[in-house]
């Protein structure tokens, strides 16, 4: 009877919620999970939300849990909630959230780098480079090279008052503006570049950014 306390199952309108005990040994948890999954009597496919509490699970542990659950054809993990993250992940997230500001003109041959977001107040001239781990926002003209999400963040964007860069890079994708004039003729004013789902860099009006990357906004909700 004591063993059965490790996993509690609750049915909600969004599917099953599995609350996993965060004090017991991981092996005990797995074996009980196996039992519960095999003894379950279900029809159709139910979505399962996992609540890990204060247990830290790395990718390997997560795979183990999921594979146990997926032994039943009726269960599918839809969401994983955890109250803890590793220090490393936390630091990475903090750095990515940080924003650095450069005021002045980035001139030919100069490189401005930031680990997180980068705000440039001034122009980025031809053959100058701005590189950021996060997104790049330029209050001025980008005429050189901009590389957002340099560490692989595919959600990073490049937004500028005037976007006529020769090269746009987001994560590991490069877009070469072979014909600067075509970009120019398409009104480079107030634009942003982002990585599409198909892996291509696209340019759109700045106004579209709130729909393209809603997570960039730190203000949520409103009156």
């Amino acid at each position, binding site marked *: 009877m004591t063993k059965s306390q490790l996993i509690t199952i609750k049915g909600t309108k969004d599917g099953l919620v599995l609350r996993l005990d965060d004090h017991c040994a991981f092996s005990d948890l797995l074996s009980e999970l196996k039992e519960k999954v095999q003894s379950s009597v279900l029809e159709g496919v139910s979505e399962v939300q996992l609540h890990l509490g204060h247990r830290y699970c790395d990718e390997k542990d997560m795979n183990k849990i999921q594979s146990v659950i997926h032994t039943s054809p009726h269960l599918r993990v839809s969401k994983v909630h955890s109250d803890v993250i590793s220090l490393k992940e936390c630091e990475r997230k903090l750095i990515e959230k940080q924003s650095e500001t450069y005021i*002045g*003109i980035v*001139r*030919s*041959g*100069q490189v401005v780098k930031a680990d997180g977001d980068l705000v440039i107040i001034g*122009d980025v*001239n*031809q*053959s*100058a480079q701005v590189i950021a781990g996060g997104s790049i926002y330029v209050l001025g003209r980008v005429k050189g090279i901009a590389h957002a999400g340099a560490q692989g963040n595919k959600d990073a964007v490049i937004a500028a008052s005037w976007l006529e860069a020769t090269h746009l890079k987001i994560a590991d994708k490069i877009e070469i503006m072979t014909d600067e004039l075509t970009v120019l003729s398409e009104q480079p004013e107030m634009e942003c570049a982002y990585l599409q789902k198909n892996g291509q860099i696209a340019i759109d009006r700045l106004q579209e950014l709130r729909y393209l990357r809603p997570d960039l906004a730190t203000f949520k909700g409103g009156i």
Partner: protein
Amino acid sequence: MGEAIVITSGKGGVGKTTTSANLGTALALQGKKVCLIDTDIGLRNLDVILGLENRIIYDLVDVVEERCKVHQALVKDKRFEDRLFLLPAAQTTDKSAVNPEQMKKLVLELKQDYDYVLIDCPAGIEQGFKNAISGADRAIVVTTPEISAVRDADRIIGLLEAEEGLEPPKLIINRIRSGMMESGETLDVNEITTHLSIDLLGIVMDDQNVISASNKGEPVVMDPTNPAAIGYRNIARRILGESVPLMTMEKSKAGFFGKIKNMFGK
């Protein structure tokens, strides 16, 4: 205590040496005591443009290596009594013969005796450039209305802005052909200044006489009617602190009417 101004451009052939010679001469014409330093060691030209080549005895390298006193190496331009001097570069060695500390010391010494020390910088961003800017208080960047020259000027301005103790550089746009600028074949003055976003010190028209005057060893600025000379004279006055309106529009209009006159003349 005078002021040291370095004249630089990054790209070669845009008219650094011509500008140095003409500004030096123009400042001397205004009654200032001027010393020109040619830092283009190994490829010296300033002496030729000033027509002083055959009077060189010692040079810059002799001075920094203390083979002679500074005043022994200075070549006096006799056209300006005691107001225009040249410290020529050595021709037999290269840029590495001098280091920035030596240049700093030398320029400081010359500033005591002269109102203006104009330093003619070699092309490039290497040792020669570092030597030339090391002693300067101000910098003048020369460019032409070509994209390649403007790109290099941008690079140079970046390096100058990173240099401590140097005032923000000023811009001279050289070799302007008003016809080409009006028809949009070259960048116009406005485009260049907005792109580089530094103060414009002046513009100089392209003129054949600049070359012939240089060949004769008489800077073109000595001819007060020449359009390029007017440009250089205006720049010299602005260096002295006068506010002189830019001659762009007037000049180009004059060029336009001149053309019509020429057409009727034929």
